């Protein structure tokens, strides 16, 4: 069965993206045109280009994505990475669409009022990421932490508290009083005190313990929602003030109501021209057929890797096959002896499905890129690229995961440990698609994920170490260690594992193991980290595992 036997519809409804409530056609848009380029070229210039590679979030837009509960979840993504064609049939919002002609959206209101926008270039992106979190169904509470109250600390409070009156320095001052005491503006008294702004707000403050700043606001707002948005002006505090001041969602808000209806269904699509085509196949079979016919086709999932290829490297593909909405790739199945995760699920979706049931992965997710990227990046794509610094591979190695590879020739399951063969190389053949990731259950009881990067969040790993173990009767009964960033591929730290297996669960054992771990792999020096530092971190991770688990 090949793709060409399944001509797909290209009617207006299929080729339109609903942008801010109005349909806009992508029928004539080239497959390599990003959503950001397309929107801006169409006069929707709220989304900005700050980097064109998923790092700054200035381009963020809100997309209606399946909520997992049959409804819709507003999800912010980097529009600079996704081809416009991939959004055909979907609904998106930009900052322009959130406000009505008279009223600002609550998110915009708070951002404007609290000074969350300075130069304003990052602002439309922040507004979209913030709005997506505002609409998160399980975000609850209002700004004061008490339901239904609707108060938040005011910026006037914050800034008046920031004003220090030095003793003996308080001077009445007004410009309107000239040097020779002749008022420029007749009738204006010298100012002795500063009046607050016209707006009056109840004065409630959220409490924070110094050094332990909350990452979740009293209104349930998770700051990670803004982790992929950079601002060079504000120092983020006014933005955070705005985020934490948001109240409950008004049930009459149409975007809130939209959450209760299903996200737009996937529809097959065929766009472009020979040599530059975009196809959204109807099902996995069609996708596999197309791939078998066109080995140099590019598979498109969340486009967080492919988007960078498009914009930075200016790569162009003869055929782009969108697999992100294929049903067969979006299944999540739990049984007694395994969890099967569809390769087309995004990191955010996997995190929600697993809901903490695999602690090792639960530790990983917040450290993976930014929320914006996680909202689009798929687990299959993370393995598909074969990058030695991808974060999921070390963890999945430690979990002894397997991959289901599908091709028009059939399916096969292989252990992830046997998957990578070299730098960005794997046993996957050109006609195969990763269908799912299978994690044997139950997972080993002890699990830890260590990621060392130059920046804590929103950065690629210098080194990532995932460790899963079982200790029985004071001995290391089972242990698996996955390591990223220490060789041309993600590796298992076999020597360290072999050393530890059967050894007593003691600090001494792990001290000795750390020295073996230090020389696992062949770490390189680059501007992220020196080889010495990478080796040192490997060693430390083993020690740290014992220390943390033991306590």
């Amino acid at each position, binding site marked *: 069965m090949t793709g060409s036997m399944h001509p797909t519809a290209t009617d207006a409804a299929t080729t339109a993206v609903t942008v801010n409530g109005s349909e806009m056609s992508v029928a004539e848009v080239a497959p390599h045109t990003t959503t950001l380029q397309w929107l801006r070229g169409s006069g929707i210039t709220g989304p900005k280009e700050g980097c064109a590679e998923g790092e700054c979030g200035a381009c963020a837009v809100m997309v209606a994505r399946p909520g997992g509960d049959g409804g819709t979840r507003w999800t912010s993504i980097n529009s600079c990475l996704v081809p416009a064609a991939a959004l055909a049939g979907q609904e998106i919002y930009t900052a322009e669409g959130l406000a009505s002609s008279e009223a600002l959206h609550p998110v915009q209101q708070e951002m404007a009022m609290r*000074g969350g926008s300075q130069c304003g270039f990052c602002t439309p992106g922040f507004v979209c990421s913030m709005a997506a979190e505002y609409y998160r169904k399980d975000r609850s509470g209002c700004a004061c932490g008490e339901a239904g109250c609707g108060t938040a600390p005011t910026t006037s409070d914050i800034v008046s508290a920031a004003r220090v009156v030095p003793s003996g320095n308080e*001077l009445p001052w007004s410009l309107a009083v000239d040097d020779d005491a002749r008022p420029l503006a007749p009738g204006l008294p010298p100012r002795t005190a500063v009046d607050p702004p016209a707006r009056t707000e109840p004065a409630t403050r959220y409490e924070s313990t110094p*050094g332990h*700043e909350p990452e979740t606001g009293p209104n349930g707002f998770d700051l990670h929602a803004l982790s992929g948005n950079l601002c060079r002006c504000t120092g983020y505090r006014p933005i955070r003030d705005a985020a934490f001041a948001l109240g409950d969602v008004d049930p009459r808000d149409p975007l809130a109501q939209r959450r209760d209806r299903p996200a737009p269904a996937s529809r097959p699509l065929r766009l472009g021209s020979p040599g530059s085509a975009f196809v959204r196949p109807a099902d996995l079979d069609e996708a596999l057929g197309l791939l078998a016919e066109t080995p140099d086709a590019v598979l498109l999932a969340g486009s967080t890797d492919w988007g960078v290829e498009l914009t930075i490297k200016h790569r162009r593909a003869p055929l782009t096959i969108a697999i992100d909405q294929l049903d067969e790739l979006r299944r999540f199945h739990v049984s007694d002896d395994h969890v099967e995760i569809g390769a087309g699920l995004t990191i955010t979706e996997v995190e929600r499905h697993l809901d903490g049931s695999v602690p090792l992965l639960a530790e990983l997710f917040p450290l993976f890129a930014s929320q914006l990227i996680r909202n689009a990046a798929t687990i299959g794509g993370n393995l598909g690229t074969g990058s030695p610094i991808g974060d999921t591979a070390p963890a999945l190695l430690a979990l002894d995961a397997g991959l289901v590879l599908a091709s028009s020739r059939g399916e096969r399951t292989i252990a992830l440990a046997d998957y990578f063969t070299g730098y960005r190389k794997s046993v996957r053949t050109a006609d195969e698609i990763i269908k799912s990731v299978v994690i044997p259950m139950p997972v080993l009881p002890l699990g830890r994920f260590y990621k*060392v990067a130059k920046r804590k969040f929103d950065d690629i790993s210098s080194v990532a170490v995932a460790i899963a173990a079982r200790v029985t009767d004071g001995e290391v009964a089972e242990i698996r260690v996955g390591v990223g960033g220490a060789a041309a591929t993600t590796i298992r730290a076999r020597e360290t594992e072999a050393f530890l297996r059967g050894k007593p669960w003691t600090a001494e054992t792990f001290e000795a193991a750390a020295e073996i771990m230090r020389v696992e792999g062949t770490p390189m020096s680059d501007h992220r980290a020196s080889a010495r530092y990478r080796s040192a971190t490997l060693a430390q991770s083993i020690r740290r595992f014992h220390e943390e688990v033991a306590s």
Partner: protein
Amino acid sequence: MTVQHTGTAGQDLERIDGVAKVRGLAPYAYEHQVDNPLYLHPLQATISRGRIETIDTTQAQAAPGVVAVMTHLDAPRLAGTDDAELAILQSPAVGFRGQFIGAVLAETPEAARAAAALVRVEYTEEPHEAELRADRDDLYAPEQVNAGFPTDTRDGDPESAIAAAQVVVDQTYTTPFEHNNPMEPHTTVAQWVGDELVLHDSTQGVHPVRQTLAPVFGIAPEKIRVIAPNVGGGFGSKGVPHAHVVLTAMAAQRSNGRPVKYALTRQQMFFLAGYRTPTIQHVRLGADASGQLSGIIHDVIEQTSRIKEFAEQTAVPARMMYAAENRATSHRVAKLDVPVPSWMRAPGECPGMFGPEVAMDELAEACGIDPIELRVLNEPDIDPESGKPFASRHLVECLREGARRFGWADRDPQPRSRLVDGWYTGTGVASSTYPARRQTGNTARIRHDRAGRYSVQIGAVDIGTGAWTALTQIAAEALGCNAADIDLQIGDTDFPVATVAGGSTGTTSWGAAIIAAAQAFRDRHGDQPAVGAHAEGEAGENPAAQEYALHSFGAQFAEVQVHADTGEIRVSRMLGVFSAGRIINPRTARSQFLGGMTMGLGMALHENSVMDPRFGMIVNHDFAEYHIPTNADVRDMEAVWLDEVDEHAGKLGARGIGEIGIVGAAAAIANAAYHATGIRVRDLPLTADRFLA
């Protein structure tokens, strides 16, 4: 009758431009509607020094959608070529990797980029130098350093004083090669309308762009109109026009009158939009056992581009910061085959306060006294450099207030003595300073448009600092009306002349012109002006600057956590206390301070453009690799300020706040990291590997 007007200076007014910005409707340079534009994609040199031998554009010319390909062989000749950064495409010479060597003009950005990839260039390479090292034998003393400061200064005999001192700190500190990275990439939209050039430009100064470009193109300044109502940040890198403005305007000479659009990519910005030079700072301090300084020497080595000198005034703050009888400073510069450095937030003070403020921490420890007390002890009575009294020097109040708020009194000075949950914790302090200057050459125009409403025009630019709001407030106060009655018009050379938004001079210099215009308006038209009445006012120098040294001061406090196993470093708390004269709008001021401190945090922890000297290549030329702080890096951060007025800073009483927030921040963090770990890192950024013992 007395009236209290709303929204005047000093009041906590929300940003006037905020609503348009949160709606995504505020237009930036690229977004102005122009008819039938062409798009530019540049050609850039792929060698660091040499000359172009052949450049083959045949394929590119023939590519679909291409309108023109321009190289040094056929580009318009420029009238003024004194500024080698701007004199592009005039010769086959290449001065640094990434330099413009041509441009493709096409119907779409995609076509321009695709065609640019088809141009074949052959070069003759010459040996290049791209590494700044203290042991270079070609370091030279520039005639003067930036802002007209002397290259070297000397008072007394500091070498002997230090040799005789009871306690000596003699260390070398380095600050990184940094890129401004405003969020909006530099953008120019250029169109020739007859013999007039119209530019929508992302710039910090519309008139400065005009004045710089006029001689380059050999036309009168009045023939250039520059428009910039909204600018997505600058931090110095848009303070002077860079080569892309010239390239775009040249290309527009080849476009049959069609407008040409060009926005630099983030990657291109690392080569073409200026940066802060790396510095190597040798600091020597001599003191008696109590900590009283007798000698200060600050010798700085930094880089410029071989094609154009830019000599950062790094050692300038050491000239006025602390009292010591014997003082010397110097600047030595290496001319390298690298991109041209330029202004970056708090040029001079920002890098120049790092070395000395860490050295002060080292001195405090060596003397066994508290670092705050050390600074208080060395507080000068008058400006050590000029001998003038300070108009207002509240450094001690800032330090004391900060100490109180930060909980400094409980600090145990012993380093590496607080390990909590695997993290070493420590606190540090540093001083901050920035000069208050008023730029002359600002004029404002006020017109009584209709009953009770005034338009106020000046060619100022709001790059995010809040000028839209602050200037409105100043105008309202000066005219004695509500902010809502002012229709401020800025960001266009059609308005009266204004200086650059830079050096913390914008609000005060433009504000002075607005006040002068208001005074002229009232003088001429009284309290009951007719509709249509108007007046202009020009601000001269601040006469008090003759008698007083005008500087802002601040105290930066940081709490740092360093992971014992991995060396990962986090700044868990920051507090800045600033004395910057009158605060025109506390709401916008707060985020200016916080934004500056956050950029200082980036300087301390992340920011570092990595030069590979073998290729003259900036390796990490994008946001994936050049890290600026994210939301998650900014933990508990607070900025407060003394509620004061500097009566010598003109009628406004303000000294400007754009830069002071960044100064000293990195030193406070480095000092805190030492207190946490006992490991003294003297080179920025403070990366994890430095803390693995």
